[in-house]
């Protein structure tokens, strides 16, 4: 360690900014490790230095919520009515009518394929026997979405009209997007009491930001000349806004509508964890707890169907202007009415159809048989990953390597060997001109040896500050340090590191695997043809559903959580990698080809550098996705902040819930700003 520093010192005068930052980080890390036995507070933040911030937050919020509570309760009492109406309407309408309506709507929006999607989708819901549960969920969505649309749209327009509040609105939306979904629920629970209204409000709150964002974006992107033409036509501000700007932005606003619907559905299902409403999310949770995976999968399928139908149909609104023949709509509706009337007496109740019960049961049996016969293999996969990858990453090689798992005991000599190896590799890189890379390798080796959760806090702070400085200058560095210090002081540091570790492991896996799939998809069109629908599907499925299959195969635990996070967070990495590579301007490719470059050379020298900023943005999305899934994964047993948020929900502990949620948001925010900073830098370097 010191040897490396000595070698590097003579070069210090001509080190790049990145190399200097890495050098300082490495030095601080080494210093902490060396001094830790003597000065223990350099390693772990002492308990006595922790401020009771969660209590303060709890007290402040309790006071604040006490004030709002009467209004909230009133609102909740009012919302009960439209919810009741939606519920009754959806449940009392005979199922052939509902299916007919959705099919007709599908036809009108997207022709035959959408009509078929609606018909077979809802047909499957009926066959699953979860019709009424499904309708309950839809009723919640049907009431929360209009609320979200009005609130989100209003905020978007307001931000557009009053430029002074725009920055503030943007910041609040950013925060709302990073605060984990569960964290919303705790204060809402206190405000509105148990019951379906909480789910409703939570989903409206969660679904409003995408609407607001897209309205803002859409209005902002209306061509300047169109706005000017409206002014020069002599329109008043209201005429300009409602007759010209909003209609011109309609596509973007429809994208917002689509995202709003999906967010509402997703949140309605997550909100089922607080119970009190017999909806489909609750059904999944219930069957999962009872380890009835067949029915659980079936209920999960219903959610996926809703998601796919709602998503595809509303996505058409944003892309296609064409609307299909209304006569067919009337014909379908008329047929549904006639069908209902004709078979009125013999129409089976929606819950009695349940044609798939047999399928579910045999699925259950088959699954049990599968897990029994392949139990060894599954267990081996799980344990190998846990013992050889996840655990060392979490607590470091020095503690993870035990005779019981690795077959031998870790000795200080081995630690020295690891450091030596890291130092040698680092030196090699530095010698070949990549000084920054050398330091980074050294730091990485040190981290594996120490373990993420055992990292000394001064090292984490220095490292984060260094990254911040390189990515975005002094302001970002200060922001990062201040934010991290609040976590440190709040006493949530250990849990934050745990979250960071699991998230980091998943993001790393996603980056490697997703990046590879993305590259393959960019090179071979057939791969993309297979990967694309899978990606579409994974992105449509509400977070909750990811838990079912991993739970089935690997039971509760960190490995299942890891898999669930990866399955969800890998999609943006694949998409952005491919998009960045495919998007290389044709002229650049032609220039490379005519220079005589091979395919591989073009990929390495032309397409990859050009795609780098896009790929970084993909990584950024992957990180944010991982954080949002991390909280959901707390349901199947993770430690860290996610667990705290989930526990707080159970105990209605607002202080802990909000603090842990805020800590999670801080981590996500920091990761976001850092990666965005690097992406921005790359973009500037390429002159994009």
């Amino acid at each position, binding site marked *: 360690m010191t040897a490396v520093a000595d070698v590097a010192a003579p070069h210090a005068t001509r080190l790049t900014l990145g190399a200097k930052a890495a050098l300082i980080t490495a030095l601080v890390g080494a210093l902490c490790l060396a001094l830790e036995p003597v000065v223990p507070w350099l390693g772990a933040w002492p308990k006595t230095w922790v401020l009771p911030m969660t209590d303060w937050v709890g007290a402040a919020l309790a006071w604040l919520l006490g004030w709002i509570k009467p209004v909230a309760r009133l609102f909740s009492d009012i919302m009960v009515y439209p919810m009741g109406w939606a519920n009754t309407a959806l449940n009392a309408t005979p199922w052939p009518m509902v299916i007919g309506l959705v099919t007709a709507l599908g036809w009108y929006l997207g022709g035959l394929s959408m009509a078929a999607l609606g018909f077979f989708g809802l047909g499957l819901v009926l066959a699953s026997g979860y019709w009424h549960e499904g309708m309950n969920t839809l009723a919640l969505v049907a009431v929360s979405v209009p609320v979200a649309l009005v609130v989100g749209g209003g905020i978007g327009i307001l931000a557009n009209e009053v430029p002074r509040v725009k920055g503030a609105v943007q910041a609040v939306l950013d925060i709302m997007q990073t605060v984990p979904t569960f964290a919303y629920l705790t204060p809402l629970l206190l405000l509105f009491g148990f019951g379906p209204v909480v789910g409703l409000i939570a989903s409206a709150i969660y679904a409003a930001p995408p609407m607001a964002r897209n309205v803002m974006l859409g209005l902002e992107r209306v061509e300047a*000349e169109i706005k*000017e*033409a409206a002014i*020069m*036509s*002599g*329109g*008043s501000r209201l005429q300009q806004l409602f*007759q010209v700007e909003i*209609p011109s932005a309609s596509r973007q606003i429809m994208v917002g509508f689509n995202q709003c619907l999906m967010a509402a559905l997703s949140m309605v299902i997550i909100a089922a964890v607080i119970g009190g409403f017999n909806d489909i999310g609750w059904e999944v949770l219930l069957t999962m707890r009872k380890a009835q995976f067949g029915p659980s999968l079936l209920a999960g399928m219903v959610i996926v169907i809703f998601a796919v139908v709602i998503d595809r149909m509303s996505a058409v609104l944003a892309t296609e202007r064409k609307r299909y023949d209304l006569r067919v709509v009337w014909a379908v509706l008329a047929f549904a009415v006639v069908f209902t009337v004709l078979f009125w007496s013999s129409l089976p109740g929606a819950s009695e159809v349940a044609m798939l019960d047999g399928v579910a049961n045999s699925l259950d049996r088959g699954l049990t048989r599968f897990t029994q016969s392949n139990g060894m293999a599954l267990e081996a996969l799980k344990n190998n990953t846990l013992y050889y990858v996840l655990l060392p990453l979490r607590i470091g090689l020095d503690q993870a390597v035990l005779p019981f798992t690795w077959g031998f005991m870790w000795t200080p000599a081995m630690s020295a060997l690891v450091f030596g190896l890291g130092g040698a590799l680092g030196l090699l890189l530095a010698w070949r001109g990549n000084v920054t890379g050398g330091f980074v390798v050294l730091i990485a080796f040190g981290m594996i040896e120490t373990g993420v959760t055992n990292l000394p806090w001064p090292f984490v702070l220095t490292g984060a500050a260094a990254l911040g400085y390189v990515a975005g200058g002094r302001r970002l560095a200060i922001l990062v340090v201040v934010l991290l210090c609040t976590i440190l002081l709040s006493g949530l540091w250990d849990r934050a590191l745990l979250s960071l570790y699991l998230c980091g492991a998943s993001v790393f896996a996603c980056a490697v695997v997703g990046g590879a799939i993305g590259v393959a998809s960019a090179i071979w069109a057939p791969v993309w043809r297979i990967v694309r629908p899978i990606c579409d599907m994974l992105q449509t499925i509400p977070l909750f559903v990811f838990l079912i299959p991993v739970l089935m195969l690997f039971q509760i635990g960190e490995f299942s959580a890891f898999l669930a996070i990866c399955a969800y967070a890998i999609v943006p990495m694949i998409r952005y990698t491919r998009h960045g590579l495919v998007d290389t301007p044709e002229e650049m490719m032609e220039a490379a080809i005519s220079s005589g470059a091979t395919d591989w050379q073009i990929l390495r020298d032309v397409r990859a550098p050009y795609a780098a900023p896009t790929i970084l943005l993909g990584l950024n999305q992957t990180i944010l996705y991982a954080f949002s899934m991390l909280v959901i994964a707390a349901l199947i047993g993770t430690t860290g902040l996610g667990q705290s948020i989930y526990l707080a929900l159970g105990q209605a502990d607002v202080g802990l819930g909000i603090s842990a949620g805020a800590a999670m948001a801080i981590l996500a925010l920091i990761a976001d700003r850092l990666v965005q900073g690097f992406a921005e830098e790359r973009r500037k370097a390429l002159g994009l």
Partner: protein
Amino acid sequence: MSTSDTPAIACQSLWQVFGPSADKALTEALARSGGNADAAADDLRARGYIPAVQDASFEVREGELFVIMGLSGSGKSTLIRCISQLLPGTGGEIRIDGENVIGASKQKLTELRRRKLGMVFQHFGLFPHMTVAENVAYPLKVQGVGRKERRARAQEVISLVGLDGREDSFPRQLSGGQRQRVGIARSLAVNPDIWFLDEPFSALDPLIRRQLQDEFLRIQATLRKSIVFITHDIAEALKLADRIAIMRDGKIVQIGTPTEIVLQPVDDYVREFSKDVAKGRHARVASVMQAGDGERGPDDPGLTTNMTLDAALARCMELYQPVPVRDAGGAIVGTVNPSALAAALQVDEA
């Protein structure tokens, strides 16, 4: 109504400065420089402000086609947005029919736009969700004109620009040239006295551009609007303008008729523009003629004062006999009639 000697538009020391509290910065800069515009502009730039239009003064007479020409970034688009009050204007005066519009109330500006002003945009600025007829009728709609009446008026202007039959198309279904016809029709819907055109033909193909220029001249010949026309194309400026203002770095460097710009450029910047211009097409015999009954030879090709130089040259050439043409070795291979040479070089006047 204004009398005929009031200019349609009069700008007096007009400034448009971008930056935080630009008004104050401009006042201070002018005070420091003792009213010297160039020094004030440099002062502003040094302080991080952008003086996009500096000290612009000019008049547009009633029925005049006034072209503002300059390279991109010279401030011409900013200037037209100042006059049309899409930008507020930082200092100076803009009089439209004698009334200062800088600092006018919102209602007053809206009223002015509804009655007197029309504007055409470089990228058309058409409303994508409205049909051609709805686009054209929109300025009438915002004033509360009834559906029937506005459709009738829209039909009139749509015919004027030659788009009959496309009333119910959407902008996305039209070609670039057709789109700009819609833009022109819309700007004429309220029959404005003053017509702003911001690089209306720059986004079009050369052929379509010429076609639209000709039609624009035809429309102007019947309507006689007071026009401010922006372009970066010297040929377009020379072809259309009654008078041209040339802008550079926010300043108007020369105002003059096309002939004056071509033959008496005030500096190298303006000269550079007119360099590529076939002077023969724009300058008239009068501009090179020596007045009086001076010394001259026996020939008289029949020149008149308002003949272009090209035409005059061709006439003179006709007096020559055919001359020999040799190959690389010096042997005569044919003959050329000088008048044929001149005719071949001459471009058809559009």
